[in-house]
Structure formats: structure tokens, C-alpha cells
């Protein structure tokens, strides 16, 4: 494959955007999943529905909602811009945010499943041995849920690589800044004679997705072995 410098930029940018999305989204997803599994409170169903919203909404709508919330004049966006000087809309960071929001349900679901499968008996045992709440979370619950957490992260990463609707709506299609692989493919198809370029980029996209899926499978197995199961 002979990709141009511009195309390589798109590939590199895609990897960076996905990494940032997962990096920031994962801790939040772990906390959300833990709250949903271990706590009963009013509004729990609402939180659950809210978390899963990006999964069922048209991505364009998610992107548009992000624009309203995080735009320079939006309720959150204006705070970020006025006090911290952070502008999300039409930036690389914005593309990451859109990816993070879109893949959040994927991560929460995967982590939730592994937390639900965790043996409460082991936590009880840890309690009688003097381990407090956070102690149990970090030494028993999370290590035992780590296969689910890691697999969730890898699948989310792979999904980020293909995120289109929300990204183009919220972050636009700016080469070198927000133009990730799928956006580059879309842009190539808009130009007459760009099919060859689109095909090349699609091959890259396919390869990356495949690597992601194989990696998650392998990681899950390895971790379960390491955890003595």
C-alpha cells in the first residue's frame, strides 16, 4: 500500500483520537458500571437508559446534542471555554469526546457483565479478613473483573476507529485535526476518481478492526488464565 502523507495523518489521527476516547471514557465507565451493579437508588433505571442512549440514537442526533451542550455557547461548552480556555467543537479533543460518548455504552455493558458475574462470596471473605470498601474494590472486585474491563476497552477502541456520524457532526471533517479514517474515506468518495483511495483506506480500516477483535479475544483468554480460572 502506498498511502500519501495526508492519508497517514488520517490513520495516525484515528489511532490517537480512539486512544484518548478510551483513556478518558474507561475510568468513568468502570465507575458507572459499578454504581449500576452494586447500588439501588431512585433514578437508577434513568441513569441506565441515559448511558445506553447513544447506542440507539442516530449518531447524527448524538453529535447534534453534543454541539448544543459543548458548543462555545452551550451550557457546558461556554464554561469550559470561558474558564479553562478549552474549545471542543471542531477540534481533535472534540472528535475524541464524540467517540467516547458513542462507545461509552459498549464499555459499560462489558464491565457490567463481568461485575455481575463476580463472586460476592469472595468479597464477603475479604470483608471478614478486614478489607474495607475501597480495599475490596481495588484488590478483589476490579482485578477479578479485569478481563471484562480490558475486553470492553479493546472493543470500544476498535469501535472508535469507525465512528462517523457523531464525529462529523460535532467535530466536522478537518484534515489533520478531526478527519479520522471513516471521514477520510467519506471525503475521498465525494471527489470524482477517489474510489481507489477510498478502497485503500477501507483496507486499512478493515485491518485495524480485525486486529482489535482478535486482540480482545486473546486478551480475555490470557487474563482468565492469569487470574487462575
Amino acid at each position, binding site marked *: 500500500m502506498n498511502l500519501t502523507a495526508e492519508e497517514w495523518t488520517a490513520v495516525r489521527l484515528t489511532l490517537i483520537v480512539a486512544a484518548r476516547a478510551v483513556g478518558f471514557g474507561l475510568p468513568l465507565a468502570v465507575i458507572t458500571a459499578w454504581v449500576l451493579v452494586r447500588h439501588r437508588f431512585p433514578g437508577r433505571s434513568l441513569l441506565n437508559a441515559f448511558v445506553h442512549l447513544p447506542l440507539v440514537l442516530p449518531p447524527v442526533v448524538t453529535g447534534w446534542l453534543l454541539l448544543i451542550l459543548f458548543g462555545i455557547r452551550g451550557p457546558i461548552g461556554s464554561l469550559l471555554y470561558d474558564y479553562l480556555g478549552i474549545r471542543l467543537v471542531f477540534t481533535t479533543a472534540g472528535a475524541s469526546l464524540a467517540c467516547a460518548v458513542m462507545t461509552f455504552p459498549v464499555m459499560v455493558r462489558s464491565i457490567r457483565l463481568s461485575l455481575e458475574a463476580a463472586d460476592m462470596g469472595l468479597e464477603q471473605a475479604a470483608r471478614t*479478613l478486614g478489607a474495607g470498601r475501597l480495599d475490596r474494590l481495588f484488590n478483589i472486585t476490579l482485578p477479578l473483573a479485569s478481563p471484562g474491563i480490558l475486553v470492553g476497552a479493546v472493543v470500544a477502541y476498535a469501535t472508535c476507529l469507525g465512528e462517523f456520524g457523531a464525529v462529523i457532526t460535532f467535530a466536522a471533517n478537518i484534515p489533520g485535526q478531526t478527519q479520522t479514517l471513516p471521514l477520510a474515506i467519506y471525503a475521498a468518495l465525494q471527489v470524482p476518481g477517489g474510489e481507489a483511495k477510498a478502497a485503500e483506506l477501507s483496507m486499512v480500516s478493515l485491518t485495524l478492526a480485525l486486529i482489535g477483535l482478535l486482540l480482545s479475544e486473546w486478551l480475555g483468554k490470557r487474563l482468565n488464565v492469569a487470574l487462575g480460572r
Partner: protein
Amino acid sequence: MTLTFRMRHHFPAIDMDMGFETPSSGVTMLFGPSGCGKTTIINAAAGLFRPDECHISIDGKVLGDTKTGIWLPPERRRVGLVFQDARLFPHMSIETNLRFGMRRTEPGSIRFDEVVDLLGIRHLLARRPKTLSGGERQRVAIGRGLLAQPHLLLMDEPLASLDAPRKAEILPFLTRLKTALKLPIVYVTHSPDELSQLGDSVVLLEKGRVVACGSVPDVAGRADLPLGQRDDAGAVLVCRVAEHDGDSALTRLEGGGVTLWVPNQDAEIGAACRVRIPAREVILARRSPEAISLHNIVPGTVRRMTDGPRRQSVLVEIALPDGVLLSRVTPDAISRLALEPGSAVLALIKSTSIEVLGATTPG
């Protein structure tokens, strides 16, 4: 020094109202059929289950009391719990498992090396729980509980999930543990073997109520309790090894105020041991028989007689100077010997039918 436990709780299927006091030294057995409340007591004592009403204290230190609103969480109770299914942490080595509770408490009198050697688990330290046998796992779980330096150790049927050979492998460890460490132990079981071998006192439970509470020899020797209704009912006597007779290959035990001859025991003179004498192995006589192979002819007085299941047998409680024997005989035997409470009888016991516990037989 006592362990006080009282609780009341309403479950959909059963109302539980249980209370007992037991010496806070030695092993207290909670004994009863499944569903009688044994595990509920253990969980309440560990702090994992909070009953509607309760008062739990060890030597005056309150662990939980609903009246005053005191409820120490499990992690602050210093009460160890050994579960039936071991519950070792699968992602840690055996050594890390053992040190888990130890690292979370101030150093105490129970030392790592001592426990590891006592339980015979030194060769397992580097391994993962998955690679251990059931018996090995249970030994590690016991060690892990001990090393958290508990003030009280609870054991919830620790041998129930093991087969007979594995049980036989662990029982001696538990007997050693009991004498080596001065730690009150509450032990749940429904096995009479474990009861008579390990227990110092016993709380007898049935359908969420305490039926009887007392020392194991006292409770095991009562003909009127559920224990006596079992086929394997038997009295327990606390004995001392008095003499080894090399010529006859017999050992003389003194206990319950009487002398018992048993097959040669591999124990030092003066060593304490227990014997269990199954009721069905004890023959009753009014006069001493002559020319008989029997070594043990023990005089006593009939104290109580109760009908066995389906009235096919009678369980006779025979008072000894300092203990009690049980004998199961037919109603016909009772009338032929004209036995009634207060009658003097002779209990005839084959030396081979006496189960010596806590001392090992050579060979």
C-alpha cells in the same frame, strides 16, 4: 469469659429465636439439621447478616446490639470465618491469600510460620488456588482466617464439601490447632463424628430454636434430645491414658469415673483423649456374666429411658460416677431385666467398639 449470642429474626419460611452462652475458650459446636439456623448464627456473628433483633458479645466486647444500635461491620470485628467452599482469592498465590488478612491488622500472637507448619501447607505457598485439592484449599482457608488474628474463629461446615478421606486428612489438623492456639472457635456441623472429636461444648439447634446447650459429654449422653434419636447415638467420655499393657495389647483409660480397656493406643501415659461409645454397642446386664471375652463391665445406675423411633428400641441413659453412658436395647430386654430409673445395671462394652478420638492407634 463467655461468648453471648441472642438473636430473633423473621424469615418468610421460619421465625428464628436463638440464644446461648458458651465459654469463650475451646470449640463450641453448632449442631442441627440443615435449615435450623446454624449458618444464620455464623453470618450474624461475622457481621454479614443483620437480624431484626440481636445481641452478640465476646467477653463483654459488644459486636452487635440492636437495642443500643451498635453494629460493627465485618471488616472491623476481628472475627474470622472459614466458609464451606474455602473462597480463596483465585488471582492470588497461596502465600498472598494467607497474608491477606494479616497485612490488614496489627501483628498478633499467631505467627505465619507456625500456622503454615501446623496446617502442613508450606509446599503450597507459591501455587494458585485452582491447582489445589479440596482438602488443601480448606486448610489454606483456615490458615488465612487464623492469620487475620481474630478474637473468634467461625467455621461453617468446613469439611462438608470434602469426601471421607479428605475429612480424615483435616480432622487431625483441627484437633492440633485447637490445642496449639488459645482461640475460641465456633464450629458448624451436622456430623456426629466432628461433634464428638472436636467439640468442647455444643449448642443443639432445631427449626430456629436452641434445644440444648452444654458440654459435649453432657449433651451427647442425654437420651431425651434429638441426638439420642439418631441411629448413631452414642455417649462421649473424656478420658486419660492410664496404662499400656504390652502382654494383652490393651490400653487402660480412666474417665467418667470408670475404667475402660481399649486396643493399644499410641499415646503417652497421662495424655487426654476422648472416647465415643455407640449406644447400639452397649449391652446391659443385671449380674456379671462369667467366662466372657469382654474386658469392660461398667457398673452404673439407670437414669432415664426414652423410646426410640417407631418404639422398636429403648434408649437407656446410665449414670456413671462422673459421666454417662447410652445403651440402645429392645423393649423386651427392658421388661426381662425389669429396668426402671434407679435400677443398678452393668454396661457391657467390647473394647473394640469403643471409638478412641484424639489419640492415634499404632499401625
